[in-house]
């Protein structure tokens, strides 16, 4: 067996595929579904922050997408300048410019795992598996970065000490109550992550016996 064959793994004989359709369909469905959900999530918000204050009866909201920030960005920036926080538009420039390619790449890798009938498929799906955690870690990094790097010359810098806004749940700053919550995009990514785990389980179930028998065959031939 060649190295490449080892990575890609054995192909499924046609008669076996016909006989045990479900066995080989399940990993395809879960891994493919995960890839699809990841692609869809690019167009959906991942995280949102809602602010309430007496003078904003219907609240203010920002929604974070992988590549953009939407909502009352201008107004929140105007308010943030009082505590010396940088404009939201300055956050995560690299991530935002690359995110579409990265997420699409992660999804493609997960999709590619369908055609890899060896344990290497695990490495192809790991990015998709870990992606929600990576996103949240990056979000936390920028929260920390923004919240702890306040301009000391800002009008209210004496009143508001540096802080790290939570990535989930309620907090209070000056007259604002803020509610941070995860949004549909992130939920899709988490579902994709779970589907990857399930997909890998079925993957192992489907291809491990096949691979083992191939390997046995190869040793015999040697």
């Amino acid at each position, binding site marked *: 067996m060649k190295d490449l064959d080892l990575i890609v793994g054995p192909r499924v004989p046609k008669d076996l595929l016909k006989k045990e359709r479900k066995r080989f369909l399940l990993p395809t469905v879960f891994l493919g579904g995960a890839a699809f959900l990841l692609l869809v999530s690019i167009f959906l918000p991942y995280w949102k922050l809602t602010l309430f204050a007496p003078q904003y009866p219907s609240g203010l909201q920002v929604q974070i997408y992988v590549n953009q920030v939407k909502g*009352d960005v*201008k107004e929140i920036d*105007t308010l943030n300048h*009082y505590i010396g926080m940088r404009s939201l538009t300055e956050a995560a420039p690299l991530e935002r410019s690359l995110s579409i390619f990265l997420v699409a790449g992660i999804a493609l890798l997960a999709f590619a795992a369908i055609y890899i009938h060896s344990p290497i498929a695990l490495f192809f799906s790991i990015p998709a598996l870990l992606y929600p955690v990576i996103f949240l870690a990056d979000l936390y990094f920028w929260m920390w970065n923004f919240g702890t790097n306040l301009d000391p010359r800002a*009008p209210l810098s004496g009143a508001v000490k540096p802080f790290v806004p939570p990535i989930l749940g309620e907090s209070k700053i000056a007259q604002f109550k803020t509610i941070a919550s995860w949004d549909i995009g992130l939920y899709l990514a988490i579902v994709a992550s779970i589907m990857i785990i399930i997909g890998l389980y079925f993957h192992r179930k489907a291809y491990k016996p096949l691979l083992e028998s191939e390997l046995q065959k190869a040793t015999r031939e040697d």
Partner: protein
Amino acid sequence: MKKNVLTRLFIAASVIGVLLFMMTCGKREAGQVVGNGDLKAIAEQRGLTPADLIAAAKTYVPTGKYDEYVMFSSGGHSGQVLVIGIPSMRLLKVLAVFTPEPWQGWGFSKETKDILKASYVDGKELTWGDTHHPALSETNGDYDGQFLFINDKANARTAVIDLRDFETKQIVKNPLSLSDHGGTFVTPNTEWVIEGGQYAMPWTGKYAPISKYKEEYRGMVTFWKFDRKKGRIIVEESFALELPPYWQDIADAGKKVSEGWVFMNSFNVEMSTGGVEKGNPPFEAGASQLDMDYLHVINLKKAAELFKAGKTKKINGFPVLTLDVAAKEGVLFFVPEPKSPHGADVTPDGNYIVVSGKLDPHATIYNFTKIKKAIEEKNFAGKDDYGIPIIAFDTAVETQIELGLGPLHTQFDPNGYAYTSLFLESAVARWTLGGPWTEKHGKEPWTLVDKISIHYNVGHIAVAEGDNVNPDGKYLVSLNKWAIDRFTGVGPLLPQNFQLVDISNPNGNMQLLYDMPIGIGEPHYAQIIKADKLKSWDVYPEIGWDPGTQSKSKYGIQAGEERIVRRGRTVEVFMTAVRSHYTPEHVEVRKGDRVIWHITNIERAKDATHGFALPYYNVNLSLEPGETQTIEFVADKAGVFPFYCSEFCSALHLEMAGYFLVKP
């Protein structure tokens, strides 16, 4: 009868229950003490009757709730327009129109100064207006909530207000006359804005002795062409009709069957020229000698065709359809009307014209179908001195109804009732229309059915949507000239009194609900529109907006584009305003420099308006979110001038300031 009393008691009890509920709610929510919650005790202590409590419940609009209707009222001598919520009678806004107004920066910025300047007579500054009759734009005869027009009687001017931002966009000066009264009224699709003159005079700028009154003095009505898309009157496509010097009064546009026609009163067909000091009868007597004045019936459709065909003559550079052409082509007809008339109001179906003479207790109802027939058959009783055909009174009249003393203006409801103000009697009369309207009310047609006293001396009345093809009824506002004893004394100049009347029950009595003092001028007419027809902007659509053109200003900038540019002795400043600072905060020039200063409010939040006040140079601007305004002046005094934000914009509002430094 007994059942009626029971019903009333039940209503009163329900109202008390509702009030009690509201009070407990209020107590819980706002944490305010509103007495002990015992409504009866409060009513007793304040001397309120059950009827008062019902009136209170019908008008009270709790915090955060909106009014059902919005009334646009003339602001009288203030030269402004009042915006009032109904039924709460809360003053929502005062719109600057003909008069400089500091809060709105009206007449301070270059953009707004230019609008005012365009309406000056020979460039002479006018700093007031006598606003009379607001007219909401209409589509198919119904208010569409897009534009508002209003006239200035004192200087014969017509203004256009855009109801997206409630700001005046244009003021046109009548080129022929110095006074107007028959304006503004619009045709059913707002193709034309009607402005009728009042005091006859030689055309503006011309002198003629009063002995030449009949030959040289003239009345007029101007038809301003309105372009809805541009939101402007197109002066080049407008024209006027020459009228005899009969002192024309109020007008109304025909609708439905009478669409394309205009009706207008007059009150001095005697052509009295006054001169009481010379032993002549004073105007008040001279103009009231004859029993009849003339209702003017104008074929606007025909007049517009003649104008298009070039049959007009340029007077003061403005096309005028002269009397001889009007007589020859059948544009103008007269119908006798009881002397000293004031109202000429067309019914919602367009078929009847209600005219009320101040000195005649009747409302005279003309039938348009009869008028049209007489015109078609050339059934005329004669001609006036200017060759205009006269239709006999009996030929045109449907009926006359005795309403009371001093009937003035009439409005309508959806149930076939008409409402007429009675000036001398200080009352409002409700009466039934006839013809096809009889089916709606099922009562004796053309009959007085109810009357309510008002306080005092009512001029116009306004019923909700009561002068369009689709009246709403429900509320009537009586615009009273005198208040006498209605309010606490505030010196010898008393406020006017707007009284809200409930007319929602056609089978019961009208009920007086509320008195609203108006302390800024003598309003004349008002119109009431359903609030949900108004589609007002929250903020200007884009940053750098010029409300004067309703488009992006070329002087509008974004954050980061602020700059000061010097060209010779001209210094141009591009400034932004945002909570809570201007950029730049230092503006330095040399004495004698010409300063052109553009300020853009780059906010997008609702209500985040900034002011800009510059002492000595007499500047105060209102910069609403997105708006760009410009000031232009010569820095003629050396020194240091602190400028500041004059709207309390934020917690650091006081810090929103800067220095204008003028080096000697």
